[in-house]
């Protein structure tokens, strides 16, 4: 289907069915600047979202994440540049039939039942997902007849997730989707997000939980002060921070450890030391020789969190 659709664009050429189709962006911000009064929320920002990918939008508060999402949802118009979803303006109802959103909402009407909310949102879309399917994906079985006001925080989040899928959208926005969820619900939602991506849907995720971005995203975009600071796979972003972290309990003098080759930093963390080094194996061997009583040894690569902090703090300067 895809191959024919693509090749139909090249009249006169033989139908070459290539297995690597041109990547057509599903949604785009093209050199978008957005000002609120004198405040510039986004500065000449361009980004594209492709089918089947989960993109995590990260950044400190005020970096422009929400503005980027609101532009793609058609809730606000760019001051300059262009926002488009499937080549359409997201401010048109027609374009929005392909979009679903889970926004940060304090309350939705509490005197409607879960079933009512689902039916209402399904009616907004011309080809909605079957209600039973929404209930299954959002794990709301047995709660259909419960009033929204009687649900727990995590259950409410699941209803909002279900509403985002009501229209069977190609593009799903998830703004802090797992706030207030217990670990089990969180993992279950992650599984569903991955399932959406394998169906070819595009997911744009904003989150404060970096482990969530790490677990879900095929691509991470780090924003700071309305600009893109970094973009890549979670691994690529992590590797922006050099070195690995060695944590151990030792009597060795931190000042001495700083002089060892390849050691970048030494910090005290409660009873232990955290040593960041580019050649972790060599440093560990040295440590074991010098302090036979060394214990509690852990070695970890720098996390997404470290990379995020490094990126956003340098971006602030």
């Amino acid at each position: 289907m895809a191959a024919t659709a693509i090749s139909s664009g090249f009249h006169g050429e033989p139908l070459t069915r290539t297995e690597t189709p041109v990547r057509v962006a599903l949604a785009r911000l093209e050199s978008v600047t957005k000002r609120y009064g004198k405040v510039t929320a986004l500065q000449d920002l361009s980004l594209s979202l492709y089918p089947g990918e989960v993109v995590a939008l990260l950044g400190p508060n005020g970096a422009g994440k929400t503005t980027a999402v609101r532009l793609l949802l058609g809730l606000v118009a760019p001051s300059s540049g262009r926002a488009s979803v499937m080549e359409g303006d997201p401010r048109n109802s027609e374009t929005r039939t392909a979009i679903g959103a889970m926004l940060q909402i304090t309350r939705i009407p509490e005197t409607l039942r879960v079933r009512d909310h689902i039916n209402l949102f399904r009616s907004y879309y011309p080809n909605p997902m079957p209600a039973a399917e929404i209930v299954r994906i959002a794990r709301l079985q047995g709660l259909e007849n419960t009033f929204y006001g009687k649900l727990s925080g995590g259950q409410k989040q699941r209803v909002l997730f279900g509403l985002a899928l009501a229209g069977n959208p190609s593009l799903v926005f998830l703004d802090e989707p797992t706030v207030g969820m217990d670990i089990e619900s969180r993992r279950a939602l992650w599984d569903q997000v991955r399932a959406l991506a394998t169906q070819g849907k595009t997911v744009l995720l904003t989150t404060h939980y970096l482990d969530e971005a790490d677990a879900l995203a095929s691509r991470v975009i780090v924003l700071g002060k309305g600009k893109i600071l970094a973009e890549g796979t979670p691994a690529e972003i992590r590797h922006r921070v050099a070195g690995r972290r060695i944590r151990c309990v030792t009597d060795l003098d931190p000042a001495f450890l700083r002089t060892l080759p390849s050691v970048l930093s030494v910090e005290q963390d409660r009873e232990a030391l955290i040593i960041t080094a580019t050649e972790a194996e060599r440093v560990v061997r040295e440590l074991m020789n010098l302090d036979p009583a060394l214990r509690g040894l852990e070695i970890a690569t720098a996390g997404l969190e470290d990379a995020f902090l490094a990126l956003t703090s340098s971006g602030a300067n």
Partner: protein
Amino acid sequence: MATAVINVRAQSLGLRYYARVAAQETRYEFLKMLRAKAFSFSIIGFPVMFYLIFGLTNKNTEYARYLLASYSCFGMFGAALFGLGAGVAMERAQGWLELKQASPMPRIMYLIAKTIGCAAIAIITVGALLALGLTMGGVTMTVLQVLELLLITLAGAIPFAALGLLISFVVPPNAGPGIINIIYLPMAFASGMWMPINILPHWIQRIAPFLPTYHYTQVGLNIFGYAQTRTSMVVHWEALIGFTCLLLGAAWLVFTRSEANA
């Protein structure tokens, strides 16, 4: 994988889509209002309670009929002001409106559904007052007067729906319900919804013509011939239409300005 890429396409929306959205939105809007007890109890409950106290204690008198008309206006006024004003303000504050705005549902449907929902609550209120008046209050009226009471009070309540809408756009979202409470009771009192305007202090009688609620109460009372005779009904209707245009215009202006700044 690539299959899903190209065959997704924005849908064009037909008349059937709009009809279905309107029906569902209205249905759930009404259910939501009715089940929100704080809202439905006070909007339906206030006029009904007043009528039980002041109307039925004067049963079989002109006063029972007078109050049936003026409390009907009071009920409609409250439903329009709170249903649209406080309702929209609250849903705006809670982020619910934004989620709806991000959906393909046309914005006008939201307003249409809210208006119809309020109208239904208001009709229930007037229906309850009618039932009380006719069965226990000894009120006699023709079928035509029953219809007039329902339709005239409904049509005359439009400016208050516009007022509610304007307030919900203008004031900070969380302050909306509070501000509506502040203007609701004084406006009802000063325009003779609770007691005949001519027994109110003179300075209030002088302010009253500047309140849309005064003109509204007059057209309501006129059904039974209780309106003040010094002004013709045409003037009262003109005043109501004028207020509606003014308030709707202001609401439109504020809305488009906030859209432009958004």
